[in-house]
């Protein structure tokens, strides 16, 4: 103990003694915050940044003083406005989060086998990863697809592929999430048509299409059409689903990609929610009743390394959404106020160096997701910085969730960190930051002008650069990368390889499809779609007709693109 520290303690002890002698009520030794501060000033601090991953300064201690003037109604109770403590009253006491591993590779048959494997191992929902050609609206046999067919996800170019993808998987029982954006309306129609083939009506399908084009322009970059026609397609899906597929989420408003591209927690929170409000405004502008579609809007957040900040982010997201929907957009149905979210551990935190350490990173992130109250979760596999995950790596990632759910005890009580001086302070700070960023976006003229000016893209790139500098300067330790290295970090671990024959098989199956379908029906449905694209009618029924006729993804895309044009990004770095 240092001399200064000893002196401070001595003085505090003497004060307590004087109080005791005077018969004061505070006679019991009760440390005061001032005492702690005085004591703290005598003690050295470790050489570490003491900021969150996003660069937010963190105090050494939070006390009731940090909560002075806080409104207890801002915390509330789970299942009640403003939903800070959770969207549902009983949360994991009634139902655990859905364990939903994102998967897809090679052909529809290959991925179908992986889905059956995952369902057999206790996974409770499916999540489709499409290959890059599909994400960009190209058929497997399009020249732009060369070398990319089935490599990073499954290749789906028509209803025939979608039928094979879900063969033997009842679409009225298993909920299916599809990560698809630019051509989402087309893949959604393939899905609806595939369900029809199984005898499952649209009314019965459950699941989600990501369908969040705004974050594509901002961060993920799998776009097809320019913003205005793209937003029209999204609102078409809102309207169609609210009438015909009431259990389906026509959008998953996603912060994940924004964060992975480099954004801070506050930027992820603000951009995502502001995008969400943009979709709401578009729906209202179409003349839809906000309560007819808002209850089916869902969200998707990243869960990064900073444990408490991530928990606070999910809590703040629910509160901002609830307040905005009720107060700004006049939603009356509590279902419209309730933010439901999927979460995924942060792929960007995985390291190629000492890759097995990723299991531990994923486990902490998964715990933050559960403590933040997510409705479903994907846990990344340890080998994803090297290639697509192997079955073994995926199994460990899924087991991580099962251990969390069944062994750790975190699912026993709802929002256990509520009332924590630190977590509540962080939740408030994140909400405040988000509102400030909303004001900046409004100054730009809104989300679409911000995208066109490259503002979001630049904000994200600047944050990414700051993080890179911190790591390279050694200011932030990444175990196995810039500290605790072992010399030879790149362990040879087994990786999944996609056989180039997959592309040849897929291309051959496209040729076979084109030969056997009714060409006249394809042409007439496509022509009707082009015509409808010029009008204001809802495009879903038209695209469904094309899908049923086995028109391909690119043919349908092209039929719309001839009217809508394509998106050109503002290039900068």
């Amino acid at each position: 103990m240092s001399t200064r520290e000893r002196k401070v303690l001595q003085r505090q002890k003497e004060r307590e003694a004087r109080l005791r002698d005077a018969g004061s009520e505070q006679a019991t030794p009760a440390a005061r915050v001032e005492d702690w501060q005085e004591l703290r000033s005598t003690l050295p601090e470790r050489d570490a940044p003491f900021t969150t991953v996003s660069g937010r300064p963190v105090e050494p201690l939070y006390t009731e003083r940090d909560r002075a003037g806080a409104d207890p109604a801002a915390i509330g109770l789970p299942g009640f406005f403003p939903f800070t403590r959770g969207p549902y009253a009983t949360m994991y006491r009634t139902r655990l989060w859905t364990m939903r591993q994102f998967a897809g590779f090679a052909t529809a048959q290959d991925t179908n086998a992986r889905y059956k494997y995952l369902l057999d191992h206790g996974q409770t929902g499916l999540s489709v990863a499409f290959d890059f050609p599909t994400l960009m609206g190209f058929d497997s046999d399009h020249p732009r697809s060369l070398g990319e067919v089935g490599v990073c996800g499954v290749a789906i170019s028509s209803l025939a592929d979608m039928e094979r993808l879900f063969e033997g998987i009842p679409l009225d029982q298993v909920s299916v999430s599809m990560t698809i954006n630019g051509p989402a309306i087309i893949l959604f129609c393939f899905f609806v048509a595939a369900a029809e083939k199984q005898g499952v009506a649209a009314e019965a399908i459950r699941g989600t299409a990501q369908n969040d084009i705004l974050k594509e322009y901002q961060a993920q970059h799998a776009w097809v059409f320019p913003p205005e026609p793209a937003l029209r397609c999204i609102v078409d899906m809102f309207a169609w689903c609210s009438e015909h597929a009431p259990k389906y989420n026509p959008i998953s408003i996603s912060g994940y990609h924004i964060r992975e591209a480099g954004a801070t927690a506050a930027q992820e929170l603000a951009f995502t929610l502001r995008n969400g409000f943009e979709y709401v405004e578009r729906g209202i502008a179409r003349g839809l009743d906000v309560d007819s579609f808002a209850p089916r809007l869902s969200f998707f957040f990243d869960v990064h390394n900073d444990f408490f900040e991530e928990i606070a982010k999910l809590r703040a997201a629910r509160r901002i959404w609830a307040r905005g929907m009720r107060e700004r957009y006049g939603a009356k149905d509590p279902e419209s106020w309730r933010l439901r979210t999927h979460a995924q551990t942060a792929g960007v935190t995985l390291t190629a160096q000492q890759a097995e350490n990723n299991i531990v990173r994923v486990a902490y992130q998964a715990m933050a997701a559960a403590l933040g109250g997510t409705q479903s979760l994907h846990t990344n596999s340890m080998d994803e910085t090297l290639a697509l995950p192997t079955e073994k790596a995926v199994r460990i990632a899924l087991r991580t969730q099962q251990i969390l759910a069944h062994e750790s005890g975190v699912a026993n009580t709802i929002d256990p960190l509520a009332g924590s001086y630190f977590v509540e302070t962080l939740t408030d700070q994140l909400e405040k930051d988000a509102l400030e960023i909303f004001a900046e976006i409004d100054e730009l003229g809104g989300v679409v002008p911000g995208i066109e000016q490259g503002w979001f893209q630049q904000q994200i790139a600047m944050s990414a650069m700051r993080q890179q500098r911190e790591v390279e300067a050694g200011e932030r330790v990444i175990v196995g990368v810039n500290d605790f290295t072992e010399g030879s970090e790149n362990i040879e671990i087994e990786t999944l390889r996609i056989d180039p024959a997959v592309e040849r098989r897929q291309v051959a199956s496209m040729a076979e499809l084109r030969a056997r379908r009714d060409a006249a029906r394809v042409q007439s449905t496509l022509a009707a779609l082009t015509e409808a694209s010029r009008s204001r009618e809802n495009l879903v029924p038209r695209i469904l007709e094309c899908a049923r006729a086995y028109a391909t993804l690119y043919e349908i895309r092209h039929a719309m693109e001839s009217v809508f044009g394509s998106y050109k990004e503002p290039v900068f770095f």
Partner: protein
Amino acid sequence: MTSTIGGGASGVPERKIRVLVAKPGLDGHDRGAKVIASAFRDAGFEVIYTGLHQTPEMIVAAAVQEDVDVVAMSVLSGAHMTLFPRVQELLAQAGADHVLLTGGGIIPEEDVRALEARGVGKLFGPGTPTTTAIAYIRDWFAASQKAS
């Protein structure tokens, strides 16, 4: 370019190294490409960034038009075994095989070795400090200047 970045060891002004940072294929993951482009610029290189979704033909046309020393491709899509050889081939056809073709991304070690064996420059994986790539390009450039 005639601008200089200070004298070389001999006191003769060195010309700036010109680098095309390229994103081939349909992959939209540009975080790495943008970070490395900024780091190259901060290191004093002349940097041209292609933007996303470029075909090998578009990349080689840009490389020739901009008269670059280096093409640095970022590939996270798994299509590296198609894209690197294709760009290499097209560079040679365009008479630009003096250009260093290098890059990075999610590329398994085995593929890195195979591509390097066919004459592609060094390929950098996740977690590589930007300074490593900068030093590599500087060394290559110094050696190629001496050779010519």
